[in-house]
């Protein structure tokens, strides 16, 4: 028996198969991977109509944003302590796009004046494209987190 004898034989691990496996796996992962950073904008769905009444019987204050074809945005406020509907127009840019900065400033003013407004419904003219709607919703959400899209 050779028990106790030290062996001086070098053992070489063959890593070629593992490299082959890695190459295949990495190729597959790179091909199928998506490098886009996707995120989501959370919105609710609201039915277009009058505001719901509060427990006191008076309808709660609501805000409706309407995106017009020329780039203008109409802000309509109703309910709460208001005796009549308030309409505010935010003029669009010369290229018929919504002036998002002016809209943001206007919304901040309105929220400072009526802090009870927490929700906004957004509607648009039929030809307004989705990109512009998302731009407006995203901006509105930074001021009022609850945004609804009118169905």
């Amino acid at each position, binding site marked *: 028996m050779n028990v106790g004898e030290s062996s001086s034989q070098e053992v070489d691990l063959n890593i070629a198969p593992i490299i082959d496996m890695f190459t295949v796996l990495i190729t597959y*992962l790179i091909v199928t991977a998506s490098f886009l950073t996707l*995120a989501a904008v959370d919105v609710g769905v609201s039915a277009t109509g009058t505001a719901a009444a509060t427990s006191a019987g008076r309808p709660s204050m609501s805000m409706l944003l309407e995106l017009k074809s020329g780039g203008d945005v109409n802000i309509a406020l109703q309910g709460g302590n208001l005796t009549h509907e308030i309409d505010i127009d935010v003029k669009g840019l010369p290229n018929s796009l919504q002036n998002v900065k002016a809209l943001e400033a206007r919304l901040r003013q309105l929220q400072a004046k009526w802090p009870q407004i927490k929700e906004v419904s957004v509607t648009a003219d039929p030809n307004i494209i989705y990109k512009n709607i998302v731009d407006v919703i995203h901006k509105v959400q930074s001021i009022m987190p609850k945004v609804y899209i009118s169905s």
Partner: protein
Amino acid sequence: MKPIKKKRKSTEMSLQITSMADIFMILLVFLLKNYSTSITSITPSTHLTLPQVLKSNAQVRESLKVEISRNVVVVDDKPIVRLNNFQFAPSETLHGADSPTLEQVFAHQRKLLPIPNLGSGLVVMADQQTPYSTLKRVVASAAQAGFVNLQLVVVETE
């Protein structure tokens, strides 16, 4: 003149691939970590251009997916309604009167949910050129079936 004899080296060449294996291992760990393992595939189709936003906090959650492109509305990876340049075609359904309508598909999907009254989420992936009229129609059909919490999928930019 004597011919010059070239000495032949008999040494064996062996490629050192240990460092390569290390690089591959790091790359593999990185790719596996970033690899999406969700049931709902939220990778947009090649013909779909999603709108871009600067920064959004919400993450896409696992729920029913609806895709609106120039030619078709896809619900849960199945084409349902034909569009003609983003507009609803006169004969909307893909295979005539026998095919289910958008409303029927949403109602069916709602019934498939394990807890139909709780899962009201819908992931909307629409092309950035989609007009509001088309979006409204799809959203209204979904809302009718009870899908009222929408997640509009966007591409986040720096």
